[in-house]
């Protein structure tokens, strides 16, 4: 016996995912319109963490803004510090001592590893496997210890300065870094065996939220999200800055090894492989680092000449760009921050159509967004 459809009316359901939800990585709110478990539409609503960093930037001096860049992407504060320092140095035309540049590259790459570790760990926790998360936290602690010995803090480093870095590396730091690299490198294989190639895990990620290379470029995705779609573009290689031209590394791209090119699994694997490349960069940088000063001569009353600069650097979550307009005073006239996560959220609504609720979690995890960077 079949019933006419009218006898059993169905209705779409509106669900509020977040701002408090275990796997929205902070205070992201997603308005889900679902047909049972199938998502009809998922509209992200950001801004719960808006602190007006750009407005603050116009109020404080160039040097005073440095601690605020820690609060952009708190999992990769070193990268944000350095990106801001490079941007202001480009604006004011300051030459940075080579040792300082090497130090910046070393701490940036260490921070990239620790950030990718969190991306990996929280992603697997979202997928229901909690154990890898704690392993990744364990490894990250070592990086935090290293950073504490360098700059004194474990999360908000405030290490880079305009013209260099705040302090030289402490004695023994390079040896400890090497030790960490030797310890960490085999762990990546362990992660791969534990979870990356697990059948369930692969099935959860393969062919989910496929983004073609064309779409990825058009939507402005950057960093691992762009490379996951197979676009070989890395600012460290394509717009080299600092001492990256002297260092050898491969640009990891998605290969579509377990599904369509540009799916969640590819984005995930790019991060795993990038950790290996960071290890490679670190080994070279540690071997090459010269002696010398770590701070250029910068006047205490720092007033860059009037002008505009847009500088972007490769952060773990895509490019972090600073658009700084100087009017010749001590404060920037405009300080726009372009972040990878903010742009990634733009494509979210498009790629999540027709997925299941569980996939929404996978997509958020695979973009590796972080809310302070989105809301600024």
């Amino acid at each position, binding site marked *: 016996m079949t019933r006419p459809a009218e006898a059993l009316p169905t209705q779409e359901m509106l669900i509020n995912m977040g701002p408090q939800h275990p796997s929205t990585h902070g205070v992201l709110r997603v308005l889900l319109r679902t047909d049972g478990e199938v998502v009809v539409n998922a509209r992200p609503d950001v801004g719960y963490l808006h602190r007006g960093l750009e407005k603050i930037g116009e109020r404080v001096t160039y040097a005073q803004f440095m601690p605020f860049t820690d609060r952009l992407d708190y999992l990769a504060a070193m990268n944000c510090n350095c990106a801001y320092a490079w941007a202001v140095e480009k604006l004011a035309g300051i030459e940075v001592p080579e040792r300082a540049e090497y130090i910046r590259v070393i701490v940036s790459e260490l921070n990239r590893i620790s950030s990718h570790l969190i991306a990996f760990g929280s992603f697997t926790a979202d997928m229901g496997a909690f*154990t890898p998360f704690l392993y990744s936290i364990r490894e990250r602690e070592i990086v935090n210890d290293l950073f*504490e*010995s360098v700059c*004194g803090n474990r999360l*908000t480093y405030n290490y880079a300065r305009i013209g260099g870095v705040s302090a030289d590396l402490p004695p023994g730091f390079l040896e400890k870094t090497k030790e960490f690299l030797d310890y960490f490198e085999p762990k990546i294989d362990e992660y791969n065996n*534990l979870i990356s190639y697990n*059948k*369930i895990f692969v099935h959860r990620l393969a062919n989910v939220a496929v983004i073609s290379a064309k779409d990825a470029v058009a939507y402005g995705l950057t960093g691992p999200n762009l490379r996951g779609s197979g676009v070989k573009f890395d600012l460290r290689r394509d717009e080299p800055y600092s001492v990256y031209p002297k260092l050898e590394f491969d640009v990891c791209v998605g290969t579509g090894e377990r599904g369509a090119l540009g799916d969640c699994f590819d984005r995930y694997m790019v991060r795993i492989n990038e950790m290996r490349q960071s290890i490679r960069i670190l080994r070279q940088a540690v071997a090459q680092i010269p002696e010398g000063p770590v701070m250029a001569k910068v006047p205490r009353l720092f007033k860059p000449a009037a002008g505009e600069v847009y500088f972007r650097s490769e952060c773990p979550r895509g490019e972090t760009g600073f658009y700084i307009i100087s009017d010749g005073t001590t404060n920037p006239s405009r300080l726009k921050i372009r972040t990878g996560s903010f742009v990634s959220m733009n494509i979210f609504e498009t790629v999540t159509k027709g997925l299941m609720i569980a996939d929404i979690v996978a997509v958020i995890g695979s973009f590796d967004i972080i809310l302070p960077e989105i809301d600024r």
Partner: protein
Amino acid sequence: MGLREYIGDIVEAVVTTAKGMRITARYGVDAGEEVTQQYPEERREPDERFRGFLHNDIARCTSCTMCVKVCPVDCISLEAVRGADKKMVLVSYDINIGRCMYCGLCVEVCPPKSLGHTVGYEKAMFERGEMVLQFVHEDAAEIKARVAKQVAEAAAKAAEAAKAEAAKTAAPGTAPAESEKKE
């Protein structure tokens, strides 16, 4: 889906699960892998560069207000009056550690290096108002009164000296020689 693929799927699922379980079992059996630090009993030694609570050694502080100017979040408040010897005397020096973000910019700019980080990081309070570190323990009014008195005394002394000077200049002759002797 062919039979080969079907069985391959099952085999892959079993093999990858077994691989993962081997790793978790190794950690489960190996007791030496534990990395937990049992916090209140076990404390890790903060590094010497650790940026904990700020501390101002007020004996060395020159009240130059560099730290106040450089602080991005305005958590340092400083009040000073000019003392009798033309140097600034601290009346109050408060750091609101509820606002402080431990960026360390103030420590870097401090000319006499009187401001520094301690390794302390534990501070829980019941009221937000309590989260203010006060470094001058004397009452502000008292200091002001004392300094004002000193200044007034000094001014009076100076005025007296000036008067004496004036008197000497009024009666020239012996006075200049006397002042030279003093020097």
